[in-house]
């Protein structure tokens, strides 16, 4: 009950219900930014239960959402100047689609939450509007059979709700499709970057210092040459796999994400050679360059492969099929690259 976005309370036949507004304030926006960067994302929750938006009455629509704060915010901001009841399910702080896939945004939780909230006393109709993407978890016909409420699947995106509501609960074909446009791909990049950077803070210094060892001039000279080249290539692989592949996803050839990642990795390895020799005047050998033409694409392929989890159109069967060749490729490429690199530093 003690939540900053609760502005008051309304009295209903089923008891007191917290009131919320559709206006978001800076803590809400800041919360979204933090979650997008992976900060506190697993504890960004709203208390489950019924909320009143505006001054709803017994005829007002009931919209159901997850208790991930970002899901809750997207819903209430889409409903400005409207009256509605918002029923928040306990999805353990996970968004609608992922929770539906796991079953926490599911038939059982919906039935339990409707009964617990006393919704049948609050509204005189028997209709619940659910986000379409809760479909993997909620069987509409079972809800109807169990508690007599009709489940209406609304649009995929909350932003389409006003048009959907005004059209008499009718969605256009476009509202029913989950696309993956540039904007949605961009906002998912930071989380990929943050999870990769946790490894990078360990790997980058190791490669930089290893570059200092081995043949030719002194330690720091070597580190600032071969070590720096290694660091630049590792960063290029990160950019290729976790940033550029997601951005250029529709235009990179092939269907498998790993393949797109390899192509981007080869391009970035080439860019790094030109950049390092032409602009930084690094003195790198052929074998060393060859090593990074294995390592960078292999790493980029791995990072790109992991973006399947963020995408909105990859099937589990497809991902398994891709991984059957992609994982061996990444391991072999990585090991071959490491052997070549150590060879270039310590043997030749």
């Amino acid at each position, binding site marked *: 009950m003690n939540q900053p976005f609760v502005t008051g309370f309304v009295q209903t036949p089923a008891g007191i219900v917290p009131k919320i507004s559709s206006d978001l304030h800076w803590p809400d926006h800041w919360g979204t930014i933090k979650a997008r960067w992976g900060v506190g*994302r*697993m504890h960004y929750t709203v208390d489950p239960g019924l909320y009143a938006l505006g001054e709803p009455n017994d005829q007002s629509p009931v919209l159901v959402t997850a208790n991930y704060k970002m899901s809750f915010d997207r819903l209430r901001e889409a409903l400005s100047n409207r009256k509605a009841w918002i029923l928040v399910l306990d999805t353990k702080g*996970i*968004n609608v*689609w*992922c929770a*539906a*896939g*796991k*079953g*926490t945004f*599911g038939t059982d939780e919906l039935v339990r939450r409707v009964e617990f909230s006393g919704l049948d006393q609050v509204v005189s109709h028997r209709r619940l509007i659910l986000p*379409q*993407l809760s*479909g*993997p*978890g*909620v*069987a*509409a*016909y079972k809800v109807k059979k169990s508690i007599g409420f009709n489940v209406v*699947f609304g649009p*995929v995106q909350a932003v389409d709700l006003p048009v959907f509501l005004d059209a008499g609960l009718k*969605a256009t*074909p476009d509202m*029913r*499709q*989950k*696309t*993956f*446009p540039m904007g949605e791909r961009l906002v998912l990049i930071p*989380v990929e970057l943050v*999870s990769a950077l946790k490894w990078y803070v360990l790997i980058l210094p190791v490669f930089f210092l290893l570059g200092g060892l081995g043949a030719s001039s002194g330690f720091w000279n070597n580190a600032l040459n071969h070590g720096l080249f290694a660091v630049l290539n590792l960063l290029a692989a990160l950019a290729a796999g976790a940033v550029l592949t997601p951005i250029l*996803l*529709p235009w990179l050839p092939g*269907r*498998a*994400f790993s393949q797109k990642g390899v192509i981007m990795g080869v391009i970035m390895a080439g860019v790094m050679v030109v950049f390092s020799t032409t602009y930084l005047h690094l003195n790198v050998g052929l074998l060393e360059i060859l090593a990074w033409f294995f390592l960078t694409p292999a790493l980029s392929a791995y990072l790109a*492969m*992991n973006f*399947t*989890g963020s*995408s*909105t*159109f*990859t*099937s*589990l*069967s*497809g*991902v*398994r*099929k*891709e*991984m059957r060749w992609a*994982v061996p490729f990444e391991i072999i490429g990585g090991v071959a690259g490491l052997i070549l690199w150590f060879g270039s530093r310590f043997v030749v």
Partner: protein
Amino acid sequence: MKNMVYLKDVVTLQFNEGQCSGCGMCMVVCPHAVFGMNSGRVQMENKDDCMECGACSMNCPTGAISVQSGVGCAAAVINSALGREGSCCCVIESKNDSSPGKNTTCC
């Protein structure tokens, strides 16, 4: 832009026309317009667009649709292969045995 499609001829989606009552719920819940209606009968029109989310089979009252649903997430496949609970929300196991205590940190 046309919707992006993933690998061909790989999804486990199956539609048994004989059991279909034509209620059309699959067309409502599918986020990739895999099903379409043709002269009063539901047809599977874009099978390769299916991402195996399982919404259609979950909402088919006559059991005409079957699919091995799951999340197409490489990190989750790796985690389950390594027996880790992992840093990803996506769990590969079927949702029937979802242990509520699972400590997960993604999506």
